[in-house]
């Protein structure tokens, strides 16, 4: 029962994320990506981590989605103005390398961490304890993650708003 549920959540999360990368319509991609984030929230909920699930909904579905949508709308002129292939070879290589580095770090982190054994009386950590830990020993990592998110958003805007110098659309 729980395995089937877990597989279903995985299917929804990964499936929508994968489809988001393949679609030509950027808005559809973003909406599917949001679907994927909701899948992650449902996964947290199925693990009994209520607080994290609601925070995921509030932050990702409520706020980050809006940042992404605004970025897409403000930088693209038309629905068809999407390049699926990379602009240059060097850019493609740097994308692969950056993605590979992130994957490596995540895999290293996931495989090398020894998780405490699941307790029998349910994993529900009280919200108070979560908050104390987030503001206590994990405060620095929280700030770093926030910085990375901001930089990523700014970087995506910079990349997307690059304009061919020959075009003079705004000239009177």
């Amino acid at each position, binding site marked *: 029962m729980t395995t089937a549920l877990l597989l279903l959540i995985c299917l929804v999360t990964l499936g929508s994320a994968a489809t988001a990368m393949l679609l030509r319509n950027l808005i559809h991609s973003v909406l599917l990506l949001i679907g994927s984030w909701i899948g992650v929230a449902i996964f947290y909920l199925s693990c009994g981590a209520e607080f994290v699930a*609601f925070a995921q909904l*509030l932050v990702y579905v409520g706020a980050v989605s809006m940042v992404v949508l*605004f970025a897409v709308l403000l930088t693209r002129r038309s629905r068809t103005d999407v390049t699926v292939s990379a602009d240059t070879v060097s850019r493609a290589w740097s994308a692969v390398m950056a993605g590979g580095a992130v994957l490596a770090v995540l895999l290293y982190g996931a495989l090398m961490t020894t998780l405490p054994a699941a307790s029998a009386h349910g994993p529900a950590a009280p919200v108070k304890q979560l908050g104390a830990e987030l503001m206590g020993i994990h405060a620095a990592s929280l700030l770093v993650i926030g910085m990375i998110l901001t930089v990523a958003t700014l970087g995506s805007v910079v990349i997307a708003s690059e304009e061919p110098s020959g075009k003079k659309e705004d000239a009177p």
Partner: protein
Amino acid sequence: MMPSTPQDSLLERAPQLLRDLVTSHLPEPWRWFANSLIAMIVILAVFGLLFAALTLVERKVLGRVQNRPGPNRTGPFGLLQPIADGIKMLSKEDIVPRDADHILHFLAPVILLASTVMAFAVIPYGRHLVPVDLDAAVLYFFAVGATTELAVFMAGWSSHNKYSLLAAMRALAQLISYELPLLLSWVPVVMISGTLSTTGIVAAQSAWKWGWVPTWNVFTPWGFAGFAVFMVAALAESNRSPFDLPEAESELIAGHLTEYSGCKYVFFFMAEYFGMTALSGMAVTLFLGGWHAPLPSLEFIPSYAWFGAKLITLLVGFIWIRATFPRLRIDQLTRFAWKFLVPLALINLGTTAFWSLSFGWTGPLQLVRWAVAIVLVVVPFIVMGRRLSSGVAPRTYSYAT
């Protein structure tokens, strides 16, 4: 402290008894399922009927404020007007633009209505009437509310209409601007109550000072300021006048709803009223003592009646505000949010911290505590209000002579 009698009076337990009458003979897993189902049906029925009644009350009250009778032809005193409206709207043709993104165009009202209805799940309607008692209920409430922004965007974008899209962006700018003061305004309540659970927050407001003054959050300086910020932000979040720019009927051809008709339009309309009701219910829970009676001697009246009375008072207040205030401009709207409400809500966090730290003060220090807290609330309000309106008000008009 609480007398023991009102908790167990027949009226207080009537909803439970009625439910158990239906579900008590079912086996255990089915019983849980049937109880949940009944809770959902009751919530949908009660708030659906409240929505119908509210549309009538709104039109009647607006009519009286504007010195006209309001709807008075359908049934006695126009009482059947919501039914006529409902039949009309549901039987209307559902027009979808040819170039619209059909799936998203359909999904937008569904997501909006679903997320607003989900918000009703965690509000404690009475002493024994909490549909879902979550540990992080307040967070849940605002997390499902965050989905409305997505629905507004989907509605504006999928219509393939530049007016819809522009209006959706304006609506999003407003929703995002006011989301911040809305979220900041209830943080003080959580700070003082020490819990995110709605039942815990209501329980924290259950005591009586001197035996008769209720210790509701609104009767403290930080609570009053938080309540005011919350209600203003709630007005803006539910697109109610004077913040109804997203679908200003008279000038914007209904904004992101331009291409919606028939049942889908009703969904948006219902979602607006449901959102308004849910936010009012949350305001009652957070600041107005939830289902508690205002006086100890009035506790014989069941708790859900008190909740309903407070809820309806707030909703009629919403209508009154709509009848009184003119609509803001978009620049006034965003400036009001970022330069006034957000700083006020942030300062209120400091006031609450002071209130929390001075918890042990007694005797004359109590007076000092109240005075400092009131000054912390009032002075920023006056200073920022002056600065915000300097150069703008009072306006001078030059008339042709």
